[in-house]
């Protein structure tokens, strides 16, 4: 599936883009990420075991209870995408027998491994000692870790998280996840790590998580303010980095969100918009909600197409892929395993279609957005299959214009800048026309969708 998040400025691109403006929170995040990659690189020297797991349903607090160094393969793939390394990795994986039709995160990961045990930062990336297969909201996860296990013989433990097909979490679903945690996941992690499980240690991490989650939610919801002090998509992928990956539950993550919140409060007081890679946002003309993950191989070019036109993304579903916190869920140290189950069950791609559509409509209303943009990702059926119905339904229910663009996560062959730019320009024109016509909840103009499939 598509997920993820931590972004360290690339180092290997032949044409270096201008240095992005960095604030304290960004520097803190960069330090966290670099430290994590270093911990991974030196884990086996320092007698630490290495775990790998996915972003949705990522049980970071639990893994920390066993002192694992923590790797997230989606994050590695996106890092390689940002550094323009993923194209070759994907083609290497295809030459090794993987179909051109399947997820490019998987192929970038397998291609990276084919090149040797080196991670995105150039430091060694050891083979994991355990794969925690948090099977949450994405079918491909299961095959991904089966593929890694096949190649590298890693111990794998499955945590099957049932899908919210009926739009709710039933007691049966929750009990099933808790039982797996108690009887499968925890005993396996104990055995692999040699560390005994301590539930109070888990509680302590979860207390930290809940604090960070409060500040994350505040940060993302600051976009309700006009002008929005953040970009809830391109900027949010930075903000969700620590909490969706190897840092949730650490005091350093809590501190990151405290600092981030302070910076955004300051921006709001000053009436500023989001920070972009080129500095201050030129001024908010359009407020958008975005559905779907971003493209990583041309991330800055993609973002620039928005801020050059004065567009700000005020909310995105992608910023909820590693946990939906804005409707009240917090990790609960009083009920640790049940809370972990609820967290996994509630990730965005584990929600059914009516829930996803309700959420987008709610965002359009609460964030006073002009319309919806769907970035449909070739690699990610979990997000993408059926998005054209989302587009129609959201337009029908809100009367706000919607548009549809297509790209991929980390396969540069599927990013067509000219096509996307054209479509965005048409869309902004449509938003202007709609404003002129008064808007309102009624059938909208025909959506901007691909001309042919």
């Amino acid at each position, binding site marked *: *599936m598509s997920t993820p998040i931590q972004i360290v400025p690339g180092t290997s691109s032949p044409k270096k883009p201008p240095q992005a403006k960095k604030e304290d929170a960004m520097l803190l995040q960069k330090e966290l990420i670099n430290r994590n990659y270093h911990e991974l690189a030196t884990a086996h020297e320092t007698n630490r075991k290495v775990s790998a797991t996915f972003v949705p349903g990522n049980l970071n607090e639990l893994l920390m209870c066993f002192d694992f160094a923590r790797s997230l393969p989606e994050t590695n793939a996106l890092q390689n995408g940002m550094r323009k390394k993923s194209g070759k990795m994907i083609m290497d994986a295809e030459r*090794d*027998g*993987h*179909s051109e*039709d*399947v*997820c490019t995160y*998987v192929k970038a990961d397998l291609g990276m491994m084919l090149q040797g045990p080196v991670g995105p930062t150039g430091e060694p990336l050891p083979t994991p000692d355990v794969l925690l*297969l948090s*099977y949450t909201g*994405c*079918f*491909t996860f*299961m*095959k*991904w870790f*089966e*593929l890694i*296990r*096949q190649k590298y*013989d890693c111990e*794998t433990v*499955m945590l*099957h998280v*049932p*899908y919210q*097909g*009926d739009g709710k979490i*039933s007691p*049966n*679903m929750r*009990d*099933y996840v808790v*039982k*797996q945690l108690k*009887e*499968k996941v925890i005993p396996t992690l104990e055995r692999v790590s040699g560390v005994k499980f301590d539930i109070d240690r888990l509680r302590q991490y979860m207390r930290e998580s809940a604090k960070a989650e409060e500040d994350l939610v505040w940060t993302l919801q600051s976009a309700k303010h006009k002008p929005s002090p953040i970009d809830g998509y391109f900027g949010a992928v930075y903000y969700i980095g620590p909490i969706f990956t190897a840092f949730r539950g650490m005091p350093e993550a809590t501190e990151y969100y405290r600092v981030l919140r302070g910076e955004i409060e300051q921006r709001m007081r000053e009436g500023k918009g989001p920070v972009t890679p080129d500095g201050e946002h030129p001024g908010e003309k359009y407020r958008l909600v975005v559905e779907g993950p971003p493209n990583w191989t041309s991330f800055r070019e993609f973002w620039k197409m928005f801020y050059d036109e004065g567009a700000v993304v005020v909310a995105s579903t992608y910023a909820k892929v590693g946990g939906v916190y804005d409707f009240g869920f917090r990790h609960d140290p009083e009920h640790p395993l049940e809370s972990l189950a609820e967290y996994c069950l509630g990730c965005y791609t584990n929600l*059914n*279609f*009516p829930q*996803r*559509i309700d959420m987008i409509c709610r965002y359009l209303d609460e964030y006073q957005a002009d319309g919806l943009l769907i970035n*449909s990702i*070739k690699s990610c*059926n*979990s997000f*993408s*299959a*059926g*998005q*054209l*119905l989302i587009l129609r*339904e959201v337009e029908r229910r809100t009367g706000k214009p919607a548009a549809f663009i*297509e790209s991929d996560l980390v396969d540069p062959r599927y990013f067509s800048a000219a096509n996307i730019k054209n479509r965005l320009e048409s869309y902004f024109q449509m938003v202007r026309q709609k404003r002129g016509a008064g808007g309102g909840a009624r059938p909208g103009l025909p959506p901007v969708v*691909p001309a042919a*499939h």
Partner: protein
Amino acid sequence: MNAKEIVARCERLFEDLRFGAVKDWKAAVPGRKAIGYMPIYVPREIIHAAGMLPVGIFGGGDQLEVIQGDAYYQSYICRIPRSTLELGLTGRLDVLDGMLFPSICDVIRNLSGMWQIMFKDKYVKYFDVPQNYDDAIGGEFYVHEMQQLRADLGKLAGREVTDDALRASIAVYNENRKAVRELYAYRAAEPWQAPTSELYLVLRAGCVLPPEEHTALVRAYLAAARAEERPRRDNARVVLTGSFCEQPPLSLIKSIEMSGCYVVDDDFQLIQSWLLDDVPVTGEPLEELSKAFLHRSAATSSKYDEKKEDKGKFLLKQIKERGAEGVVFAAASFCDPALLERPMLQEVLAKHKVPYTAFKYAENTGQMAPIREQAGTFADSIKLWSAA
């Protein structure tokens, strides 16, 4: 009826995208209901025990022009959800009172939610199955899921689905699976007598006929096929795998056979042979169905293999038991489960020195020449190797 007549009847059922057989079944007794299910597996016993007809929906095949369905999907999504939507949007599935969407992949999973939105008057359920195979963990979850389905269908039927009704339905499906197993065993023993293009149609009839009638049909075909005198060819014996969801066109199956392959095992209609032996008709029926699923069911790529050593084990067993000489990987384009699984299975086959070939198709693939050439070359190479 002779084999040709039986197959002709099955082909008429297969080609009828208006589901006349289901309409007839419903019309015979007022108030009857029919529930559709998509691949790979649902416990049809529960639908049957509720007095309803389980109806297999395997896309629109190569005869359906997909117009509206295409408007809902990008070019990189497989064809089965488009053609299934087309069937729904053109009223062809109005005969169904509900649809079950089993846990196959993200596309079918999402289709369940689309169905909830687009066909609001129908019963719609995403049917999750466990990926944990302990009775006390995955089994308990699965029994609850089946209990929920039983309660929902009971409500729809206006009467409780009793344990006795479930046991009776389990017995009916045991008989059906037994007949299907006999058919597969016979096809493997004498593939020239029961070609796969015929076997396939006989199985597809099971998507729309009541199980009792389908069992009789399978047995009638078996008897008729045995009575035929058909030429035996020096074909390569192959297992065909990866076609468990979107189905290849019938002409593709015929092309593989014409190219010099006897298909001696396949996964086209997994639901009919998913449970590998009889489900006990004594005891708690849902628990027995659960145990059969957890411990005695087929392997496929939508199902987790707990251990590395398990990968490919089922395929190797098929090869050994059916006396196959090679494997044809035939997967629908953009089929994540089949295409992600394929390299792992190929690695296992390579280790065991089993030759294989691979291609993709769509349910409306029209050009058979490349597939015929590829399968023909594969069959020739097997024959050359075995002669060496």
